[in-house]
């Protein structure tokens, strides 16, 4: 029973994740042109880790 619950949770999590990605992709189609490479393709050209320099 516990095993089945764990499996169900993992599968539901996967379904939710794919659903969200699909939604993001559709939302990206509606974004303004300057919106950039954020349509869930994994191609975002930048790293979000700026180096602090002085």
């Amino acid at each position, binding site marked *: 029973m516990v*095993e*089945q619950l*764990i*499996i169900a949770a*993992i*599968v539901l*999590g*996967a*379904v939710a*994740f*794919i659903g969200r*990605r*699909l939604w993001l*992709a*559709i939302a*990206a*189609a*509606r*974004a*303004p*042109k*300057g*919106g*950039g*490479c954020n*349509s*869930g*393709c*994994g*191609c975002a*050209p*930048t*790293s979000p*880790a*700026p*180096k*602090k*320099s*002085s």
Partner: protein
Amino acid sequence: MSTSFAPRSGAGVTIEASQRRIRVALVGNPNTGKSTLFNALTGMRQRVGNFAGVTVERVEGAMRGPNGEKVTIVDVPGCYALSPASPDEEIALGVLRGTGGEPMPDVVVVVADALHLERNLYLVSQVLELGLPTVIALNQVDAAAAAGVEVDAVALIHELGAPVVPTIATRGEGLDVLRKAMVSVLDLPLPVRPFGMSAEISDALAPLADELVVHGATPTVAAHDALRLLAVPRLESWFGDARTAIAPMVDEARIAIAAAALNPRSLEAELRYGWSSGVVSRTVINHNAGARTTSDKIDAVVLHRVWGPLLFIAVMVMVFQGIFTWATPAMDAVEWGVARIGDGVGALLPDGDLRGLLVDGVIGGVGSVLVFLPQIAMLFLFIGLLEDSGYMARAAYLMDRLMRRVGLHGKSFIPMISGFACAVPAIMATRTIEERKDRLATIMVVPLMSCSARLPVYTLLIGAFVPPVALLGGLFSLQGVTMLMMYLLGTVTALLVAAVFKRTLLRGPVRPMILEMPAYRLPNLRTTLTNVWHRAQMFLRRAGTVILSCSVILWALATYPKTDLPTGISEDRAHEMQLENSALGHVGKVIEPLVRPLGYDWKIGVSIAASFAAREVFVSTMGTIYGVGEADETSMALRERLRAEVNPATGGLRYSPLIAIGLMVFYVFALMCISTVAVTVREAGGGRIGWGWAVIQFLYMLGLAYFSALAVYQGGRLLGYQ
């Protein structure tokens, strides 16, 4: 330590330096090293390349100033002048002029290429006229010195009336001075137009400048625009409703200029180039004037009418041969590692569905895609080396004649080549193309270029069904050549489809291409390897998210509902029955009639259907399907399974080279990427128009894929192949 100083805008007000926020716009001609400088200043990893048009959108980064100031740097696409001709230039100018909701920058850093200073000074003079605190980053002084060009930076400061900082962005040299200059320039007098104009020109432009001031422009910007607008065919959208009042004034100014026996359309160019030519004569010493540079000598071969195309083909053959052959040992190692992990996890867990989920679903699915990481890394290594060396721009030049023949602009070649990596940034790269119809035609065909997501599909099928026969005395192998053929098939079809679009829906004139040839240089190994690592990370992230999730879902569909199996049947038969009666099996049986004419069974059918989420999911789905209910204890490579799969109906092998080739052809043409559809909608204009083009793109590619695969399979059978 923090210091206090009085900013210009708030006399008498002191702000602690560490609290001060400064917004810096990084502008310059294309391929001057802006993004390299941006990366060096901010520590970000914005894509860079040794050709024009790499940056097509604005990107913000942060850094600290010398006194702890919070500096926001905005990297923008390159532009040659402050009159936008293409969407990427519009983005650049929006940042610089503070239009479209952008705040005005506090400081402008113009990145100028030291080797081509005269041309770069055109934009410099325009930016100076905007009256914003401006710093000139004289970049690539090392390349200039290597070419015998020496720039007197101090003399240049006096000519421009603005700070000039020599930099070598690739090596991080001059950056500390540049950081200081970005802040200290705020305390210097604002720059002004660096050249004078005759009284008759000034008088002719004065009413127009006054009109622009009435509509909200500052006197400096109005003076700049008054001269610039003489050559602009249509007033830019940022003038808004004021266009109706300004347009007649522009016409009057043109008439007044013409009355002074001057050409209003070319006046700005003549004034600026006249000035920049004088500045260069006073500040630049060219020790090798007139001599052929190393790049010229290399270009004599690379751009030769005969040798150039042959060399291009040889480079492409070497790239795909390298991807297939040189990555094989690493691929075998990853494959071995994945199999051992699967065996290890399987041995640790008790028999049951959770074990099945982890071993068959997660490791079987994700692992079957992960083994192609070395090929992906190799592909991006080659692309990086070709881009950074300067060869990519030459390839665009070589392809220009062919592109024009099909009706495409030569500039389309760079987005198309970028499509080998990923169609999404490649479609965004079409922003560099001025003409809307050329841009749309390019967007429509870019997804035909085989992106890196297709690589695992090709590699799996070629590895399983194409024998490693040596060609040309072992120089090439049939496997590498087959992969090249798949890439060529996509490229040639893209050109043919573009020709159809340009002669039907997107009919329009073909414009000549003006392409700047960057100097050849040794690829920067750090930049190239960083890019490869970045791409490998993306691939791993994708494997750990989308592919993992799809594998879990497909495992569940392939496992449930459970079937009551009759006793006494073999394990292989039990596996087959369970699969056929699972939810996935039922879906597969619905799809099967559609794919049966292509030679595919229901397993390939559901794998194709699942790969609409991402192309690599085809491989992970096959990995999951062949992992579920696995009969033996030892994991076996997916390609070996496919090769050995028996058709229970005939007793013969289920898959053949003919089916594999048909399947690869299907993947060459099919648009199975939601992200590409989304970016096509956006870049094709958004709304109904954007969706319309995206639907056309999706349907023509799907039709092309289906009927080509059908022709391969049925044609092959008619010729006697199985």
